[in-house]
């Protein structure tokens, strides 16, 4: 749980700041791979995964339990996914698969860029200048409780093309998380640093560059990791309701066309791409906040 500077921040930030991303399975494979392989855990990990797959297979294909029997089994999915000539036209050997991935990534990238470009400066400014936050905070509080997916119809109504409304939705998903965490980042900076900088004769612009910016950086990056998660979250909804391409659309389209294995392929792809995405941001963050890492590793 992220400590907040004052009680009043807590309710405001509850939902977004505390849904903090965690070090996941994939990150472990990267960093401490050797150490990880030596302990007993890889076998247990494997046991869990294999058990899950076997259970999936048994329920859907061998025992053919009611309800489960309608779902595609793991073998169907994998066969389709890695088939050179897929039955339903989607596998790692088809161009279409990558077009869906590419378009979803592009949308997330654009939205994420916009959300970061607007959210980080606004958040930093709100944290730094009380006057600004006095004006901006009430409006933010007015808009924030509305779940981002409730914006779907309005987004479609507002924007001239479907493409722009999907990007807008995805943007909304990331924007608030970025804004609030950047703001919280500035709030988390010890007042003594501002005083020390003022003592040492720093101008406002220097204080911004040398205190506000680096000091808020750890929170900003936490915010970015959360925000990219939210971006994928809203992207899927947007694509399902309004898309003409993309992984979310693929899921929905395959459902309509009764191409069930493709649904699972698209879901797993979404999870994979999403994980890689937040992993990349974490790596960038760790690189930019080296001073913090050294501090804790003393």
């Amino acid at each position, binding site marked *: 749980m992220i400590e907040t500077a004052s009680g009043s921040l807590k309710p405001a930030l509850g939902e977004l700041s505390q849904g903090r991303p965690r070090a996941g399975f994939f990150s472990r494979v990267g960093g401490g791979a050797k150490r990880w392989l030596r302990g007993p855990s890889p076998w247990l990990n494997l046991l869990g995964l294999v058990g899950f797959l076997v259970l999936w297979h048994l329920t859907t294909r061998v025992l053919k339990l009611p309800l489960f029997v309608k779902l595609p089994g793991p073998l169907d999915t994998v066969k389709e996914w890695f088939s050179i000539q897929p039955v339903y036209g989607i596998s790692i050997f088809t161009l279409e698969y990558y077009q869906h991935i590419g378009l979803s990534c592009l949308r997330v990238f654009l939205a994420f860029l916009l959300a970061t470009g607007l959210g980080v400066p606004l958040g930093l400014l709100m944290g730094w200048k009380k006057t600004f936050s006095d004006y901006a905070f009430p409006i933010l509080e007015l808009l924030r409780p509305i779940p981002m997916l409730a914006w779907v119809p309005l987004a479609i109504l507002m924007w001239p093309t479907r493409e722009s409304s999907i990007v807008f939705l995805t943007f909304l998903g990331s924007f608030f998380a970025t804004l609030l965490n950047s703001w919280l980042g500035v709030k988390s900076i*010890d007042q*003594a*640093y501002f*005083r*020390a*900088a*003022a*003592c*040492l*004769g*720093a*101008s406002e612009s*220097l204080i911004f560059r*040398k*205190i506000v910016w*680096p*000091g808020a*950086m750890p929170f900003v990056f936490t915010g970015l990791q959360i925000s990219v998660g939210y971006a994928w979250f809203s992207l899927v909804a947007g694509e399902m309701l309004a898309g003409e391409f993309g992984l979310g659309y693929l899921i929905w389209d395959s459902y309509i066309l009764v191409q069930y294995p493709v649904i699972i392929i698209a879901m797993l792809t979404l999870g994979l791409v999403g994980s890689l995405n937040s992993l990349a941001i974490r790596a960038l963050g760790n690189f930019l*906040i080296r*001073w*913090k890492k*050294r*501090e*804790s590793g*003393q």
Partner: protein
Amino acid sequence: MSVGGAISVREASKIYDPDGAGVLALDRCSMEIGKGEFTVVVGPSGCGKTTLLNAIAGFHELSGGEIYLDGRLLSSPSRPARPGSDRIVVFQNGALFPWMTVWENVAFGPMAQGTLSKEAAKAKALSGLEAMGLSLIADDYPGQISSGMRRRAEIARAMACEPKVLLLDEPFRALDALTKTVAHQFLMEVYDRDRPTVFFITHDLDEAVFLASKVFVMTTRPAGVKKILEVTLPRPRDYRLLASPEYQSLRAECQDAVREEALKAFSAGEREM
């Protein structure tokens, strides 16, 4: 060698009013601090010492009275002081910027004020650190060095601005006894070399008498000056001084004064502010 640095606090008062209940932190406190004097302020917790320091530093305004620096009005209720590089604060919990290396921290002041170019500031920072025996840690981040080193580095950062006044708010509070004596020695050397005016807040009476040329014992809140002790022990001082009878009697005198106020504060149920 710094020029000037005489501080005159005249009838300074400060009322905190966080939620309507006015708290008088400083009550018509007057204090004369000569140029280049090593002043130590002792008093019970929460008595308003830090309030006074903050007013001199320019972090908040006074509710009454004035503060002068070298005869020039520094702070009054109508004209609050602004922080300036002629008065540098070394903070209670330390405020080295954790995202800058030690030399970057030391070079920050001259660079921020635009008095030196980046290269010149770096050169000056490095030579300053060397003169203070800190060149080994120049490239480290504050998080990587010991707390004693951090305090020294922060003093080095302050001195790089060549301040007239050095304001220290219980800088060595968190250090263990051994590290503390090393830090004292360090501060003494810095003081003996550059002779800034020092305004040093502490609870530790040994520290107070050992470092000071003048000790101000404050009353419990609202703070006022209860007693002034002139410490005429010769400089440069070192730890052997602690055994001398002059030191012992000064310390005892100081202790008596502080204890009386501490008891008052305790029975009034004061808590750390």
